[in-house]
């Protein structure tokens, strides 16, 4: 019998520790597929964040290091500068990248580090059980904004792609979502582009992925996909925010 669908070699045969309906599993798989297709598994080094995806090294079947909260772009910088022929990527959540690690991501981008950043935006602190994130939408209820995020008190969400698009050192920026089969396919091609850019020494690429967190959003998996489509995508509009390569 012909095998037409299988687990990517870049993923380990491991029981997931992510919650039901979580987007990380899908994104892990897309990264695994892309790394397989580009045949770079044996020269890839991943940098895991602090947050739900800290356990990424349990799932990825290639070299992965942990990093302190928000510092993944600095760690990746050290690795990539010394091993420029290896493929280095960070995998970061919104708290990691857009709150505690804002300085690190902005300056890695400004230096134009030739790395790939996978930024998973689920608008909430997942691992600590649902506090307000830098990307929590106005009105969204979290455990630290029980009446909903009030911009007068809690300020505005940070739009990372829009922010980084102003930085000269950035080569490629795209925001996608994983709320439908179509958008998942689109996300995969964005991830692939971000890795290809690095292989071709083009420079800093970041893919922001709007991803569901049903447990902390207090929704069913299906409701949370609808929430991405109907609410989140309106505030964080998907699209290519920067492409120095033209096209």
């Amino acid at each position, binding site marked *: 019998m012909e095998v037409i669908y299988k687990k990517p070699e870049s993923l380990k045969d491991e029981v997931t520790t992510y919650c039901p309906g979580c987007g990380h599993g899908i994104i892990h798989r897309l990264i695994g597929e892309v790394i397989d297709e580009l045949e770079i598994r044996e020269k890839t*080094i991943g940098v895991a964040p602090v947050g739900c995806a800290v356990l990424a090294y349990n799932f990825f079947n*290639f070299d992965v290091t*942990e990093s302190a909260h928000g510092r993944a772009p600095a760690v990746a910088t*050290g690795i990539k500068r010394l091993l420029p022929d290896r493929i280095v990527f960070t995998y970061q959540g919104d708290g990691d990248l857009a709150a505690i690690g804002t*300085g690190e991501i902005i300056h890695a981008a400004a230096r134009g580090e030739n790395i790939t950043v996978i930024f998973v935006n689920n608008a909430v602190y997942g691992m600590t059980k649902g506090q307000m994130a830098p990307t929590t939408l106005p009105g969204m209820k979290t455990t630290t904004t029980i009446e909903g995020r009030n911009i007068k008190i809690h300020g505005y969400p940070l739009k990372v792609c829009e922010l980084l698009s102003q930085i000269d050192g950035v080569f490629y920026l795209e925001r996608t979502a994983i709320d439908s089969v179509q958008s998942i396919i689109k996300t995969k091609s964005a991830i692939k582009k971000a890795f290809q850019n690095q292989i071709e020494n083009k420079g800093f690429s970041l893919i922001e992925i709007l991803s569901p967190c049903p447990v902390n959003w207090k929704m069913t998996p299906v409701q949370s996909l609808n929430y991405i489509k109907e609410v989140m995508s309106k505030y964080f509009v998907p699209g290519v925010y920067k492409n120095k390569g033209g096209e």
Partner: protein
Amino acid sequence: MKKYLLTGCEAGAEASIHAGCKFYAGYPITPQNRFPEYMSKRLPEEGGVFIQAESEISAINMVFGASVCGFRALTSSSSPGISLKQEGISYLCGCELPAVIINMNRGGPGLGDVTPSQSDYFQATRGGGHGDYRTIVYAPWTVQELYDLTYLAFDISDKYRNPVLILADGIIAQMMESIKFKRRKKRLPEKKWALTGCKGREPNSIKSLFLTPGVLERHNWRLYKKYQKIEAKEVKYEEYFCQDAEFLIVSFGTCARISYESVKILRKKGKKIGLFRPITLWPFPYKQLEKTMGKMKKIFVIEMNLGQMIDDVKIVNRKNLPIYFYGRPGGGVPTSEEISRFIQLYLVGERR
């Protein structure tokens, strides 16, 4: 052998290059600005990478990244900057990654001032960051010794997979002295644990998170055994004029160098005084100091702070000898006459 006239910063930079260091990340802070300036030119000449980071936090994490992939890496800073690096140092310890961190200690707390101090003794020897860990700490008293200990630090750091701190100060950082170089290291230890891409092997991972119950405790015990081994094998200290001494100065770094002159002044006056100088502040030479203190009548602890190393001296003071402290905080640097005058106050009535 050829000699070179260098500042402490330059000597530390050359030592690291000679020891095979290929990565430096840092951030400007007085009194060690010469370090990143010098490295920005020298390291690329040697095929290494220099990065001026956006913060001390980022700098130590870049060093973390360099160490993750198996390279010898260094960062330098001064007190407030070293405070910022503590998170990274804790992670280096948890992940068992080698790295060398140089602190050209200045006055504190807070922004303090830019003058030399020894006020970071507690921070250096008691952890500084979170968690149950130890860092090896060397305290040089000359530019030559700064060079020698930095050169050694890379080997020790690799050997134990543990960060090594050099605790110097603003005087050693900026003072020029003539020094001799050591031979360049050519063969560096192989690091099978390093992340280099998993070609031809199973994937490696570096981590300090152990969520499964009991696993972190085992990790901590394993680290403890490593620290015990370091305590047994890596203690460094020196004694001067202790053979016939009845009184003892205990002092480290720059302050020990000044105290050495005080000993000579007091010896000329017939006082039987010696000097004990810890070179490793951790592991502290407890056993050696206890033995030397065994034949003393009075102990004098001299520091450029308000009394920090004195706690370690008290730990071994089982005979309850009187311990007198003289310290100058906030960038105050005692003269050798000042120290000898202080000591003489307490030697009045003592038999020659």
